[in-house]
């Protein structure tokens, strides 16, 4: 609660980093996924996925369409229920609501609430879920909007914003709930090419402030620049994982090699 009362979002975000670094070895990772599997009918979408994410790290998930990337993200905040496997936060299995309280989600299609202004979008959950006083939540939201370059859009309705502005507002909305992990589900895939940059720069900025993030993306250059770890998912299974230099410079499997070659602007 104390961090949500903090007016400066920058200090809120960076406050987690030192503790995570100091106790890095002994502490359970912030997020651990073990043996996660998921079917849709006959289709096996996720097969025995193992992942770990430490506080302050950025993990990008890459892979072809239909490889299960989005489903994996959606399992983490319980929008999908896995068939088997476990999702642990700091070593503990949590309820859906507890996991949602600690994670924020950025959707491909932004999903701002169209009947509410930008500011109302941002304070809706802090006020009605966390019970934060409206003035406190508004002050926090306005400062976040400023950081996203949306200070003048607080009273606009989402329909009057560009896609890039909508996605930045959606990022601000997620941050208003003080998530420990930001889950980004193809945050730039629905954007016109000229609007991709502004959203990626906001995400890069968050990464630089040690926000823990799990990003599903097709933007290879971005993934290489901001990630501590890359996971290559294909056919619902983890094919390779490692630091970006390894994944992009020295892919070990044929599948990853041919995937990277097919990417329009592969990071090389």
């Amino acid at each position: 609660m104390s961090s949500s009362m903090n007016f400066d979002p920058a200090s809120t975000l960076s406050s987690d980093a030192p503790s995570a670094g100091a106790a890095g070895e002994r502490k359970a990772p912030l997020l651990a996924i073990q043996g996660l599997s998921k079917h849709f009918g006959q289709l096996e979408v996720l097969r025995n996925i193992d992942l770990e994410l430490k506080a302050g790290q950025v993990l990008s998930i890459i892979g072809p369409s239909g490889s299960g990337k989005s489903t994996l993200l959606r399992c983490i905040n319980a929008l999908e229920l896995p068939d088997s496997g476990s999702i642990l936060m700091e070593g503990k299995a949590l309820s859906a609501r507890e996991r949602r309280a600690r994670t924020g989600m950025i959707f491909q299609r932004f999903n701002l609430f169209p009947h509410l202004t930008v500011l109302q979008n941002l304070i809706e959950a802090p006020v009605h879920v966390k019970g934060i006083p409206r003035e406190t939540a508004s002050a926090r939201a306005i400062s976040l909007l400023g950081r996203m370059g949306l200070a003048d859009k607080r009273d606009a309705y989402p329909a009057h914003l560009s896609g890039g502005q909508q996605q930045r507002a959606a990022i601000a909305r997620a941050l208003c709930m003080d998530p420990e992990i930001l889950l980004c589900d193809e945050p730039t895939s629905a954007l016109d090419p000229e609007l991709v940059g502004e959203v990626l720069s906001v995400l890069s900025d968050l990464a630089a402030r040690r926000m823990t993030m799990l990003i599903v993306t097709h933007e290879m250059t971005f993934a290489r620049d901001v990630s501590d770890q890359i996971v290559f998912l294909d056919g619902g299974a983890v094919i390779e994982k490692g630091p970006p230099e390894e994944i992009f410079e020295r892919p070990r499997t044929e599948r990853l090699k041919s995937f990277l070659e097919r990417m329009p602007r592969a990071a090389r």
Partner: protein
Amino acid sequence: MPAYLAKTALYIARGSFVTIELWALTMLCALPLAVLLALIRVAKGHRAAKRILEIYSWIFRGTPLLLQVFFAYYGLSLIGISLPPFAAAALTFVINYAAYLMEIFRAGIESIDPGQFEAALALNMSPSLAMRRIILPQALRRVLPPLSNEAINLVKDTALISVIGMADLLRAAQETAARDFSATAYCIAAILYLAMSSLLVLLFRRLEQKAARHE
């Protein structure tokens, strides 16, 4: 002649009290009831309740409202439940209109992008909070045009209660016309019905304009 017109108009207008009363009571009861029933229809589970609501909707939307009014007034009295005419009419109208309105609200809620509900859940809202704060407000705005239709239909449907002896607008007009051998009374009644429905058209146009602010 002007004196006759004024007297007739006044007499018929007095009949519109019953019409307005029935209209208001039906809207006031059927609207919230329909929202509640629609929420059950779109909720997870509740299999049996949903089935019952489907049958209810099938029966009340599939038979004439006039028949339902007859049943409530004459039919029920045959098995020992005799309701005063206004109560029988109001009960029938509420149940009948709630069936139509339930379908409108259900379709409205289902038309909202599932991403809206997911975004609300991802912000850790409970399903009921998400429904109340995010989905319903959007659905209500979206169903204003069909709601306006129903509200106007209801003005005209109230004329049906003249057949169970209620002194409504239509009956007042009919009595006057029969007594005076003149169509003037019908014209006056038509003008009064038109005035009421025009008022509703204006009201809903305002509401729709207000709801369109965010588009």
